[in-house]
């Protein structure tokens, strides 16, 4: 009973399923003991990561595998919920889109990763051109 198996959700790269993803965030966040406020934060963070996949991962259809999907993995643990959003799209160099945690970015774009950083307790972006993207977010339950 030390660790629970993750719940996995696979959706097409289509914004109409973002609301379904948020329902699952709410359901599993509740089971993991997160507060309503924490769940609200996670809903935005996870949606942003999914929207990034939809907008950027298969940008011009090139390199898009058949079919283009988003994999979201929910791993509730002792006192925290870890969520991974993964795609096998074109990837990017995370060092070239640095997020400054201290100030909001220009409003012309680039808000997504900033919100993800602000709304979770820890974020890791694993990506490289040509090899897909995985965003790993953790939210800890307040005690």
């Amino acid at each position, binding site marked *: 009973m030390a660790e629970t198996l993750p719940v996995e959700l696979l959706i097409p790269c289509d914004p109409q399923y973002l609301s379904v993803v948020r329902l699952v965030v709410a359901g599993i966040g509740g089971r993991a003991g997160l507060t309503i*406020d924490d769940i609200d934060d996670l809903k935005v963070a996870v949606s*942003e990561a999914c*929207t990034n996949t939809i907008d950027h991962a298969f940008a011009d259809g090139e390199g898009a595998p058949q079919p283009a999907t988003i994999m979201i993995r929910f791993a509730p643990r002792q006192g925290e919920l870890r969520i991974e959003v993964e795609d096998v799209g074109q990837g990017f160099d995370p060092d070239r889109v640095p997020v400054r945690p201290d100030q909001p970015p220009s409003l012309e*774009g680039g808000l997504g990763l*900033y919100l993800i950083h602000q709304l979770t307790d820890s974020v890791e972006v694993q990506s490289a051109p040509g090899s897909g993207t995985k965003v790993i977010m953790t939210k800890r339950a307040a005690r």
Partner: protein
Amino acid sequence: MKVQTKTEDDWLAVLSVSGEMDAFTAPEFRNCLDETLEKGIAWILVDLGEVEYIDSVALGILIGSAKCVTERGGGLAVVCNRTNVLRVFDISGTRELLNVCQAESESRRLLEQQRTATVNSSAPEGGQ
């Protein structure tokens, strides 16, 4: 998400939004705004009182809408009092830019003031 539009006193349009405003639904808000602009109205009160969720795409569309109405000599203000939605405005630093108020009366007064100021400054010699 649903949007209801109500025109008031020939100059102000109140767009009341309910539901979730995300990458899937927010473009529909922009459609409603464009319809209002086509009728020649550029003062917009966006009532998010019944909105449970917004994300960066919705924010981007609200910011684009604000720019658009300003270019046409109008203005936009947002009413919102849900903590989780206000939080997204705060973190993104867009509360001032979007004239976010927690009470409808407040945002209405704000738009009225801006309009009076605009009318006065744009017609300095026609002043009574």
